[in-house]
Structure formats: C-alpha cells, structure tokens
C-alpha cells in the first residue's frame, strides 16, 4: 500500500523530543540552565515571578511534572503561548523529557 512521507512527517517528529531536525527558531543560541540553577529559580517560580513550562504532552504532564510548571505541548506553543503567558518580558524556563 502506498504510504506518503512528506515534510509534515518530519515536523511531527520534531514536535516530540527529537533534536535531530529542529524547528526554524532553534537556530538561535539557547540559554541553558543546570539542575542547581533550576533549584535556585524554583522559589521564584512558586512566588509567580518566573514561568516554568513543561512542553511534553498532557498525558506525560499528568503522570509527572516539576512542581509549579504549566503544561504547553510544543505543538501548541504557537497557538496558545500568548494566552497562557501574556507578558512577553516575563522570564520563562522550558523543559522537556530529557536532555534535548
């Protein structure tokens, strides 16, 4: 049976945790933080000064997430970021399943 493999297949892969083919925006340098830095930031997260974003699916978020994180799956970033995080100057920390 014929099976189409198009560009959106690659997109779908990128939308999960694969860092093989990253989206357009990933070309910019990414400011990374370590675990100890995250520990320092957590206080500010709970105080509501920093937004912690879990970019995994709602299922994974329901199973486990870092306290205080909001759920915004990568696929929904473009559609829902503005609604969930209205303030664009607000500090944001993003995390995924593993080190990708």
């Amino acid at each position, binding site marked *: *049976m*014929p*099976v*189409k493999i198009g560009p*959106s*297949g*690659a997109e*779908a*892969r990128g*939308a*999960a*945790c*694969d*860092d*093989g083919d*990253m*989206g*357009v*925006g*990933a070309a910019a340098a*990414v*400011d*990374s*933080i370590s*675990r100890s830095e*995250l520990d320092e930031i*957590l*206080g*500010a*997260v*709970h105080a509501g000064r920093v937004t912690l974003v879990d*970019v*995994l*699916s709602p*299922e*994974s978020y329901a*199973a*486990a*997430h*870092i*306290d*205080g994180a909001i759920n915004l799956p*990568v696929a929904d*970033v*473009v559609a829902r*970021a503005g609604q969930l*995080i209205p303030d*664009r*100057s*607000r*500090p*944001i*920390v*993003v*995390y*995924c*399943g*593993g*080190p*990708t």
Partner: protein
Amino acid sequence: MGAQAVGLLQELGYTDVRHYQGGLAEWLEAKTSTASAGPETVPTAHGHAGAGQAVATRRIGSLPRVGLPGRVSRIAYALADQSVSRLFRLWLEVVVACGVIYWLLGALSFGALRSAEGPIPAGVSSGISGLLSAVYFSAVTATSVGYGDIVPVGLARVVAIAEGGAGLILFGCVVSKFVSRRQEQLLGETHRIAFEDRLGRVRTNLHLVRTELQETARLCEGRAEPPPQALARVESASMIFVGELHAVHDLLYRPERTPGETELEALLAGVVSVFREFTELMACAQLKPGDRTPAFAASLRTMTRLAREICGDCVPREFAPALKTWMDQIQRLAGEVEQI
C-alpha cells in the same frame, strides 16, 4: 524539543527564555533520591519563597513546621522511616545513655535515684553496681513498666520523664514496623500481580487489535467504498488500541515499574505492527478526515499524540538501543497515520 520550544517562544517575542537541559528525567531522578533521604528534607527543598505551597503539593498532611508539638511529630515521622534494627538500636542507646546520666547525676551528688524504702545504700549509687542499677531503672522507665522499686529524685525526674516519652515513641515505632512489614510485603505482592496482569492484557489486546484490523482490511479489499461495519470495527479497535497505547506510554514515562527488556520490546513491536496495519487500512478504506466520526477522529488524535512521545530520545529514561529503534519506528508510523 526543549530547545525547539525555546526557539518558537523567542520567535513569538518572548525575551527571557531559558532551557532546563536535564529535563524531566534528571528532575525525577534527583527527586526520588531526595525523597528517600527522609521527610526532614522536604520543607527545605524549595527555600523560603512559596514554601507552604510547595510543601502542600508535595505531601498531603505535610509536617508542621513550628512549635514543640510540630517538632515532635516531625521527629516521629523521621523515625517511622527508619528500619526496625536501627530503631531498636536507638532505643537501646537511649536506655544506656539515660542510665549513665542517672549514674553521673548520682555520682556528682545532685541526688538521682533512691530505692522506694530509702536512699540506695552508699557505695551502690556509685561504682559498677550503681551503674547497673541506674541502667536497670532506665530500662524500667523506657519500657514504661515503672516497677517503682527505684524512684528518681531532683534533676533525675526531668530526665526520667523525657526518657519515658522517648522510649514510648521509639517502642511504638518498632512495634508498628513489625506489624506493617508483613502488610507491605503483601501489598508489594499484590502490586506485582496487578502489574503483570496489566502487561498480559496489553499484549493480548495489541494482538487482538492487529488481527481485527487485518480482518477489516480483508473486508474492504477490492471495494471502492468500505462497508459500514468495517468502519465501526476500525473505530472500536482504535479505541482499544488507544487504551493500550496509554499503558505503554505509562510504562515508559513512570519510573516506578518497568517490565523486562524483552517484554518491553515485545510490547513496542506489537504497537509498531498495529500502527503498520493502521496505515495500510487507512489507505485502503479511504477514511477521509471528513468521513470520520468524532469518536474515531478523537482516538486518532490521541493515538498520534501519545505515539509522538514514544521515541528513543524523548522518553525520560535511557533504554537499550534496540528498544530505542522500536520507539523511533512508532514515532515515524504515527506521523504517517496522522497524514492520511
């Protein structure tokens, strides 16, 4: 994926975006290692800001933070996490230490112990036999037996009350540990059986879904329009499949329990073959997005979303390369199903 999200957010105009590189995997790992260090680490884990909220989300009925009762219950919780042998040793240490204190108090002539009929004869309150009767009194107090043949006086009364309280709590912990150990064993056994049952169910259902899809594919072979019952069968099979995919997803994302490698490989292979059947069937039955019932469309969406998170690099743990290959295959096939 995190890096990708950072890029997207930056494009949307967010100026201060950082990426926690370790991700959920590293976080969960660190959390389980601090959790086993005992409940005392819990309140300090988040620092001062918003600590109340943090503690509340971490542990229901969390430990009180201030005051003597709070401190006592905190210590009691910490004790409850120790092993039986350690608790018993601690109890013995309390008995001996308090015995030595009584003896020292007596030796330093603060007045410590006297027999109920009168003072312990001189020469007994100091020296080896004095130490022995002090330890004897200590043990009688710590077990809250309290024969009353030897009674404390003066400062020793304060020590005796404290020892009595501590001894009671420690002994209670030892006893409750003994009782609950058997229960924990049974509970663990129950969990194990339930887990294996579930694994068996996943395996069986994956097989059933696959044969069902094959059967349906045969139904619509050589026809332009799929017969209506074929659509209904695909729909219900896809619902079962979504449930099992949830289970597999859970296995990969929850660190508490994992099946053996071969078992996991068999499950992943089952998922792959079901996805293959799906791509073939969808092409054959020409289930256009417009013709799909809402329930079927919903299970397709859940299916692809779940499968997108099953890939070698995005699950929060390391798996063998063979397993990773299967996972990547699932992801690729999910992308294909999505496009049809």
